[in-house]
């Protein structure tokens, strides 16, 4: 029971309280870049959840069984970014072969994810927070879920914004930023929430 409670509080923390985009400022490029349409936002979100969970798993293993025993923690950044890059490549190849339908939906977004700082961010955070193996995987999954949630919210708002009458110079990116600010304000209400 205690374990369930812990997972629940981790989920709340990663999705709402410390939302990757709105509270930690990670993964902003796709958040602004891929949030114009609802269905592409959904595709991107799914791809991020998948890669973040996988990346959390593998980087944790590499840190614990490779970097720490050989005392080469200073290679962390290189090791993690290479892991993530090859992981993304591998996932792309596997999906292409085994699930063409899924590849059609996610394929375009996968290369973009390598440079999504949320993925490297969650990998490093898992180590900094001294999470256990299970906790790291779950944290990666929940953080991706939080990312997808705000990405979808944003896409929904932006589809409506397209029809709004705006000053010409505020169209597109600037208004998206201000909307993000308002969302961050709303998410600020979650700060300090503890379960």
């Amino acid at each position: 029971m205690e374990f369930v409670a812990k997972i629940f509080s981790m989920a709340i923390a990663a999705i709402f309280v410390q939302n990757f985009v709105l509270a930690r400022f990670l993964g902003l490029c796709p958040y602004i870049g891929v949030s114009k349409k609802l269905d592409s936002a959904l595709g991107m979100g799914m791809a991020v959840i998948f890669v973040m969970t996988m990346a959390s798993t593998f980087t944790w293993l590499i840190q614990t069984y490779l970097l720490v025993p050989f005392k080469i923690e200073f290679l962390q950044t290189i090791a993690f970014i290479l892991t993530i890059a090859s992981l993304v490549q591998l996932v792309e190849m596997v999906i292409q072969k085994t699930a063409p339908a899924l590849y059609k939906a996610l394929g375009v977004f996968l290369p973009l994810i390598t440079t999504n700082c949320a993925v490297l961010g969650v990998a490093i955070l898992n180590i900094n927070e001294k999470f256990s193996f299970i906790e790291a995987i779950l944290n990666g999954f929940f953080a991706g879920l939080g990312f997808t949630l705000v990405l979808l919210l944003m896409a929904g708002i932006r589809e409506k914004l397209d029809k709004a009458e705006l000053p010409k110079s505020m169209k597109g990116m600037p208004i998206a930023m201000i909307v993000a600010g308002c969302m961050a304000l709303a998410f600020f209400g979650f700060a300090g929430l503890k379960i």
Partner: protein
Amino acid sequence: MKYYLKLGFVLLIITIIASGVLAYINSITKPIIEKNQRKTKEEARLEVLPSAVTFDSISYFNDEVVYTGKNEKGEIVGYTFVASLYGYSGDVKSMIGVTPELAVNKIKIIEQKETPGLGANCQKQEFQKQFENKIKSSMMVDKDGGEIISITGATITTRTIANSIKTGLAMLEEITSELEELTSDKEEKVK
């Protein structure tokens, strides 16, 4: 096939060179980083217990060492420990200097991630000063009927700090009473 081997080989060489350079720089910076970390803790200890000359470790609390501070004559002039509890958005850690009578001598916030402009004001001197000379029973925030005046808009942070010091003082009470028993036992044996 040969082509792919060549690709792997080039990448391997780049990575090996990079690792070598990094290992060299790491060997230079690592001792400095470790020294810095030790120094900041030492400085914080001296700041909260300025009358002490030497510090002896006596126990562990919050994964940090609890020290007794002694003057030149070897008399105990107080204790230091690190108080730590989860505040509003992260752990608030503070170095606490305590007098031999177990009243707070001085506190110094060493780590916090509270909201800038609200909870982060706990780093202000005026706030930290009010803890001086307070004993365990008066570690209570004004909202709970105590004497500690909370930071505007950050009662949670204030309460966290007060509670973390309170549990620390309780821990010290236990340790010092044990130590006293030990020393009185020894004295009896000598008699």
